[in-house]
């Protein structure tokens, strides 16, 4: 049972579970990118810039869906199956890309991630732990 722990990111007293993970691009190369672990989100949503980094030249070719965001509005999201690594654990995860991701980080949601890992947010220790199930 593999476990990996990431320290929270810290900015002027504000903490956040922003972690590095690896995603494999269309060219087979693993890229290290960062995302905010968001247990309140079903979908993982990355920006279109990350899509380009992974060699996805036309994000709209993904499975189209709409996702409700904080103000009740909806943003278009295009979902791909992406080989992903968190720590040493590799999995295939549904990752959505959107040109309308307004928050300043990628979001790592529950789909495929929280079913593979037990995820513990420890705000006292300022760390997040992924334990493979």
């Amino acid at each position, binding site marked *: 049972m593999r476990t990996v722990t990431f*320290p929270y990111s*810290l900015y002027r007293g504000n903490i*956040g579970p*922003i972690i*590095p993970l690896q995603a494999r691009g269309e060219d087979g190369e693993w890229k290290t990118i960062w995302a905010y672990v968001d247990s309140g989100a079903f979908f993982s949503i990355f920006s279109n*810039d990350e899509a380009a980094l992974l060699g996805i030249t036309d994000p709209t070719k993904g499975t189209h869906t709409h996702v409700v965001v904080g103000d009740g509005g909806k943003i278009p999201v295009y979902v791909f199956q992406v080989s992903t690594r968190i720590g040493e654990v590799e999995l295939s995860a549904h990752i959505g890309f959107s040109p309308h991701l307004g*928050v300043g*980080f990628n979001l790592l949601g529950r789909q495929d991630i929280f079913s593979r890992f037990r995820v513990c947010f420890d705000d006292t220790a300022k760390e997040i732990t992924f334990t493979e199930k």
Partner: protein
Amino acid sequence: MNTPILSPTQPIHDPHDDQWIREHMEELVDNYAGKYVAVANQEIAGADARAVNAERAAKEKYPQIAPSIFRVPRPDDFVCAL
């Protein structure tokens, strides 16, 4: 410092670059908010509004290192409701 084992076929990622990002978060947010930085060899090896450009610059400087590519949040992003 552990030296990453370099592969002749594919660049290698060094977790120390991730740690560098955490340790320099305030500097990054204060100076690069809304941009991408590509960190390799524990320094900012590329910085651009586009991730691919930041990565390209880092790979030109350190071709055998797979950079850690960080979308730098804005200060307000740290106080958000998600």
